[in-house]
């Protein structure tokens, strides 16, 4: 997916108005050049003769020259929060972190197209300063971010790292993509998400098919937890496969319930990033 011709961009809009002065493509709350009419103002209050509305001026009872005032669409800051803990290093065909890098590349291209600034924060046990990219409008930054993700070595991590990285985003208005596999206890995640109340958060859940779907044949599987190195041997058999699938479905339902309680909808990536699905996600969110 790293080749440019295979790179798919997606369309996204903020479903809410964003404050901000920089012109862009998201619905904003500031006045300026835009399609969305707000009201008429006196030419003396708003000396912009290009927007002079003759018909409205004639109709005006006060005899003022009226100028159309429109709302300007704004660009927002898009922030990536990428989990690079050891569990993201798992993957049967491709590591989940590589899939996340694909997503980052696609997002960078999409963000550039609509003129949004893109920044990245990564975390494992704590914030990874080496992977931090401040929000910029630079075009070529997407592949740099993606490559730094692909080349980083995942280390054991947890929700503490997320809490650490979130400190930089508190109170900012932004579109935040939280990319992780969410193998955390959810009670602390709620408190962390509350810090991002001004931002629109998209939880991107990256799961590998190998972790959601048990091996199809009976086998002995000696497993080691990526984060804690705890070992457990499983004797794969039909009963265990059912339990496995049930556990995955239960976790998914748990995540859905957790996010919908905060008016969020998780976006699931299974094995490979699908840009069209992401476009659909935003169409549904904005409609």
């Amino acid at each position: 997916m790293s080749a440019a011709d295979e790179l798919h961009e997606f369309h996204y809009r903020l479903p809410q108005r964003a404050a901000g002065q920089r012109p862009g493509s998201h619905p904003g709350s500031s006045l300026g050049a835009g399609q969305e009419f707000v009201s008429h103002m006196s030419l003396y209050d708003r000396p912009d003769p290009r927007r002079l509305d003759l018909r409205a001026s004639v109709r005006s009872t006060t005899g003022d020259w009226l100028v159309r005032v429109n709302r300007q669409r704004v660009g927002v800051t898009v922030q990536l929060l990428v989990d690079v803990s050891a569990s993201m290093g798992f993957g049967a065909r491709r590591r989940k972190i590589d899939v996340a890098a694909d997503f980052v590349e696609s997002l960078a291209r999409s963000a550039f197209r609509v003129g949004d600034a893109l920044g990245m924060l990564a975390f494992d046990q704590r914030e990874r300063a080496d992977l931090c990219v401040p929000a910029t409008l630079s075009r070529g930054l997407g592949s740099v971010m993606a490559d730094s993700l692909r080349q980083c070595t995942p280390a054991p991590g947890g929700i503490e790292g997320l809490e650490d990285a979130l400190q930089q985003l508190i109170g900012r208005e932004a579109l935040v993509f939280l990319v992780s596999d969410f193998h955390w206890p959810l009670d602390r995640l709620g408190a962390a998400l509350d810090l991002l109340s001004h931002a629109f958060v998209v939880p991107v859940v990256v799961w590998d098919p190998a972790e959601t779907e048990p091996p199809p044949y009976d086998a002995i599987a000696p497993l080691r937890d990526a984060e804690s190195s705890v070992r457990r041997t499983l004797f794969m058999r039909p009963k265990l496969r059912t339990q496995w699938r049930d556990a995955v479905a239960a976790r998914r339902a748990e995540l859905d319930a957790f996010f919908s309680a905060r008016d969020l909808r998780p976006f699931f990536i299974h094995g490979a990033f699908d840009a069209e699905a992401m476009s659909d996600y935003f169409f549904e969110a904005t409609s």
Partner: protein
Amino acid sequence: MTFGAIDFAQPWALLLLPLAALPLLRRRRDTLLFPTLDWLPRDRAGRIAGFAWRALAVLALAGIVIALAGPGSPETTVTRTGRGAEIMILMDRSRSMDAKMKPSDWRTIDPHSLLYQVDSRGEPKSAVARDLLSKFVEQRPDDRFALMFFSAGPMNVVPFTQHDAVVQAGITAGGLGRGLSDTNVGRALTAAIDTFTERAYTGSRIILLVTDGGAHLDEPTRKRIREGLQANRIALHWLYLRTLNAPELDAEASAPPPAAEGDGMDAIEARNAYYAQESIAEVSLHRFFQSLPVTYRLYQADSPEDLAKAVAEVGRQQNFPLDFEERVPRQDHSRLFFSLAALCCALLLVYRSLLLRSWL
């Protein structure tokens, strides 16, 4: 090197025993990475399998190392008690033994044609004797037998043993080839007596002399035989296989020397008759045996049936408990450990074939 009842042929190999702990090292390579175990079910069968392969690997390595050290139970001697006697079979291997015996119905045959009948219908004495002896050995599993052939000199074939198969093989070997030239009963008897002298007295002893001819023994030989038999308390049984025209050891031959003294005609006659008999080798031997201070029995056999009766008679004579020591050679147990290790390795192969080695 000995530990209790086990000794090791190459004890230095035990230095490798710590290698058996290698499978207990927990290596990352043995496991598959998984993002989170929290959502996987707990599996008792899996835990058992995870424990079992380590145990099998440890067992396999330990088994190989112990087998390399060559464990075994050391050589021991076991005291066994048997019922029966120690019987030394002293068998004539001379050419005369190849002669035929009279057929069983010889009494009804015309004496003039007896010679021809014997030649055509009789069986060789040695073959009959061997058959019967082999049956005799077979019927008496509790006895210990030794086998010695003799002609001009003694030939020790089987020393005293309770393993009948060896004795049987020795008896069979007596049938190979033709007989040898000479018959020296004196040397044979002394040699047979000598085999007893170094043995502890553990039960009744018999020398079973199987021959068809006698011998004139000189005085030193007679003395040695007499003293030897007496010192070792050996009973002497003589299976006399009588050929056609061979002298019969009847009452006349067994008679004691005439007490008749003086120069009377009758007395001289009796003495002459006695000494005339004495010149016959068989009679001379028989009379010498009779004069021995130990138990002596004569079994005279004209035909195979007589011989069978005689052998059965010997069998009836002796039935006393007998103590003897048997050497049990060192038993090597490394094969057992190797097979244990091989079994463990086979089970490990099964485990490996069941193993999930990659997620793809």
